[in-house]
């Protein structure tokens, strides 16, 4: 049955479509095990979940159980009937196919699908539908509200202050200065002509840029790790780098273990289009939200029991939202763990250059050096947007020693390349050693100062933060202010902060934190003058919460 075969077998010859077209119209049930028709449609996709193995027996016994379990577990809505159904898949096998082909939330409401007058609405995919639904999450709602009513000291003093976006504006002035002084020459300099800038270049980035980025990454780790430029793939942003690795390392229905609380964007980056699941591995405030390999082990085992194949671990170091750094021993334990389970490790180090405390930052690239471990399973994601205040530039990096991952990523980078213009500007900027050194130093100082002020301000209001030494955020415990100790209470507080306090912060539930009441405050978008304004607004909200009892 061509349909189901095409789902699990991605190595189709591009011309298979035409041979099928050219040959007889009657479809014969060739290949695959067992009976024809609907049975195959039910069984074969679900075999994909059961580790691609398991013969007909496993394939027929497990799917039914899995169907009910997954239905409950993932709380999926049924998709409504399509307007013009193709030849006879039964509605139950349709659901099963839906379940197995994508573990995304699906909510094509009946209202949307029902015809309006004579014009039946054109369908959008389940992936699209899931995106539309995600748009209601506080993360997006807050961003939208901010965009509609952004705070400005002079022009809009009652606007919403953005504390929900981990972006670094603290050193924009340095970058701007440099660009104005050097930008033109950087782009239209002596050797270059327009024809060079504008024509097709390797999609995974100019080698010259890779060289300077590798050098920069080494500087960030203070020389403790060195990076081979030929093992870099440059992408338009780090979100896409995470997504690309997901496509390279896993198949639809597989899963990644991700310690919580995690960056809300991971849900989109990892799950949206790839059909891959995230299994959250909770960390607790009692341990300062630090990662425990035991917890990973438990989660791995539970996934296995459910028949979900774990392909790897994804984590951020420095952590977003907590802002803590992974200890060296924990990294070594992690490497042992992934080796033992034969899975991948994806380490998102985009805030590596933004550690502002006394603790030492240990990159996974460094840990891999000294351990006798298989580097082919370790992949790093980096980006210049955050450490260099260059969010608008959208520069992401994949660093891997696995040649197959590199080869696949290079090919995938055609969907997400960086403009040559931008690359050229960056080459110039990153080659300016004194600028870079000064920048790193000043940036860390400013982050430290801002962090200190912000945490002190919150402390005065009786709000404690976890001790963090990296990144742009404070992770604050506001459980004392929520009325009911659950997600609902947390969301109520979030709403108050947004609507009354006019500050956009990220509630812990968006980060999958299992303890209610934690909030992420990004302080790097603020100027020093903004801090007292923010504190005052929080104070107001906090008082109104307390007075309600």
């Amino acid at each position, binding site marked *: *049955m*061509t*349909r189901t075969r*095409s*789902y699990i077998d*991605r*190595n189709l010859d*591009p*011309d298979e*479509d035409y041979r099928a*077209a050219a040959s007889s119209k009657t*479809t014969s049930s060739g290949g695959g095990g067992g009976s024809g028709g609907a049975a195959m449609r039910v069984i074969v996709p679900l075999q994909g979940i059961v580790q691609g193995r398991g013969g007909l027996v496993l394939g027929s016994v497990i799917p039914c159980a899995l169907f009910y379990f997954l239905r409950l577990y993932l709380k999926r809505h049924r998709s409504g009937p399509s307007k*013009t159904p193709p030849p006879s898949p039964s509605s139950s096998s349709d659901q099963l*196919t839906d379940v197995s*082909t*994508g573990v995304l939330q699906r909510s094509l409401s009946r209202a949307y699908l029902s015809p309006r007058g*004579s014009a039946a*609405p*054109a*369908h959008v*995919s389940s992936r*699209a539908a899931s*995106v*539309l639904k995600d748009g209601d999450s506080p993360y997006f709602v807050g961003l939208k509200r901010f965009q509609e009513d*952004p705070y400005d000291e002079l022009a809009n003093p009652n606007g919403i202050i953005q504390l929900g976006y981990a972006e670094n504006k603290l050193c924009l002035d340095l970058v701007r200065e440099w660009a*104005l002084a050097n*930008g*033109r020459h950087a782009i*239209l300099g002596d050797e270059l002509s*327009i*024809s060079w800038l*504008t024509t097709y270049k390797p999609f995974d980035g100019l080698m010259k840029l890779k060289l300077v980025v590798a050098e920069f990454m080494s500087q960030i780790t203070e020389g403790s790790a060195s990076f081979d430029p030929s093992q870099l793939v440059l992408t*338009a*942003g780090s979100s*896409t780098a995470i997504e690309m690795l997901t*496509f*390279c*390392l896993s*198949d639809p229905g597989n899963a990644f273990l991700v310690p919580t609380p995690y960056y809300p964007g991971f849900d*989109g980056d990892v799950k949206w*289009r*790839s059909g891959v699941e995230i299994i959250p591995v909770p960390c607790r405030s009692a341990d300062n939200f630090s990662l425990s390999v035991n917890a990973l082990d438990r989660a791995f085992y539970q996934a296995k029991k459910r028949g979900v194949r774990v*392909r790897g671990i994804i984590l951020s170091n420095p952590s977003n939202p907590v802002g803590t750094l992974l200890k060296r021993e924990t990294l070594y334990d992690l490497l042992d763990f992934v080796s033992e389970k*034969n*899975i*991948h490790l994806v380490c998102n180090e985009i805030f590596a250059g933004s550690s502002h405390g006394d603790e030492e930052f240990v990159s996974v690239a460094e840990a891999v050096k000294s351990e006798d471990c*298989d580097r082919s*399973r370790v992949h790093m994601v980096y980006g210049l947007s955050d450490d260099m205040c260059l969010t*608008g530039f959208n520069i992401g990096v994949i660093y891997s020693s*696995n040649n*197959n991952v590199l080869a696949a990523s290079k*090919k*995938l980078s055609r*969907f*997400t*390349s960086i*403009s*040559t*213009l*931008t690359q050229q500007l960056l080459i110039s900027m990153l080659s300016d050693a004194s600028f870079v050194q000064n920048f790193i130093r000043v940036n860390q100082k400013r982050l430290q100062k801002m962090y200190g002020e912000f945490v002190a301000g919150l402390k005065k209001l009786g709000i404690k933060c976890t001790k963090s030494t990296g990144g742009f955020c404070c992770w604050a415990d506001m459980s004392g202010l929520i009325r009911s100790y659950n997600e609902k209470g947390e969301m109520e507080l979030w709403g108050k902060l947004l609507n009354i306090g006019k500050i956009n912060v990220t509630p812990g539930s968006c980060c999958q934190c299992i303890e209610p009441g934690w909030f992420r405050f990004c302080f790097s978008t603020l100027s020093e003058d903004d801090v007292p304004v923010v504190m005052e607004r929080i104070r107001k909200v906090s008082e109104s919460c307390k007075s309600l009892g």
Partner: protein
Amino acid sequence: MAIGIDLVPSVQLSRVAESEKHGENSPYFAGWKAYDEDPYHEVENPSGVIQMGLAENQVSFDLLEDYLEKHPEASIWGKGALGFREKALFQDYHGLLSFRKAMASFMEQIRGGRAKFDSERIVLTAGATAANELLTFILANPGDALLVPTPYYPGFDRDLRWRTGVRIVPIICNSSNNFQITPQVLEAAYENAESLNLRVRGVLITNPSNPLGATIQRQVLEEILDFVARKNIHLVSDEIYSGSAFSSSEFVSVAEVLESRPDRHHRYRDRVHIVYSLSKDLGLPGFRVGTIYSYNDKVVTTARRMSSFTLISSQTQHLLACMLSDTEFTSRYIETNRARLKKRYGIIVEGLEKAGIECLGGNAGLFCWMNLSPLLEELDREGELELWKTLVYELKLNISPGSSCHCSEPGWFRVCFANMSEHTLEVALARIQKYVEQRMNAVII
């Protein structure tokens, strides 16, 4: 000695990573490799491979150079105060408003003002490659199908199918009517998909067509719109060569057809999506600028969010916003560009005629579609590939064989003419003429 056994299980990659669907093992790309290994250079390597497989527009560089010389501030940052609201917005996937507006106005200019574009419906992507993939993710589920008329751009096999898991079912066109799309071939493709138990989600056309180098006629566009409405599916119109039609009046955009039929507009609106890019018309492939323009609100919202995976740098947006808002520059550019492409087309067609080679009548694009079937030893795909090997490895011309474009008839080849100097083009034509002469003499002997 025992054979070593790999004790450590090597960690596996995904099927996407290991699949061949990136398509880079096909002749289309093999020719490029040949070029990479031995590239032609007028002075340093006059016997190298001439790249005629890359649809890139280099004919109007001087105009761009001139612009940038005169407007240095455009290339760096935001000169002049960006309103604080714009600053707030411009770093995310909405894109710079001034750039979207400039893009909308540029697209209108190309269509001679015969269609209007709303900047709020423009979604930015890093190139049309990304735009096509993104739309496919949005409009279809894994295992669904898109109908695409043949011959088509070889990259579609990868862009539309690789990560999306979506299938392409060809709309088989043939030379008897100049490869035009008819209601019959549309219907046949749909039935074919049904017989394969594939759910069709849409039709994807390229207008002007790659590789045909010809625009789609208004009548045909109307028939296609009727077809997609009847089948309740989408229509994606990839119009990246719209500014490369040799004359503005010869190109009809699906946007124009929609606007000219307001009575039926509401039936069609939600299903029409246009892909555009600055890579071809403006000769800026290095900048990675693509757009999706959709009349469907949900598609716009979704595409915008998904575009977070394929962003254009704000600096590039700013430069282009400046450039494209300068309507005096853009109208001069468009006009000059069209004229130069037309001239090039004339040169190549004439040169090929001298060698007795016929081309499909073209009126757009950076390439022409030539018929080399008289030169095939065997009138089939193998014969075509044999001839292709000769062209690449002996004549040192990287020309794309029709089979990589899924052409139903063997012997057609796509040859690009805009990515080289006129002199290089003459050199290439001379090589072809010489080869044809040799073949004719061989026959006589």
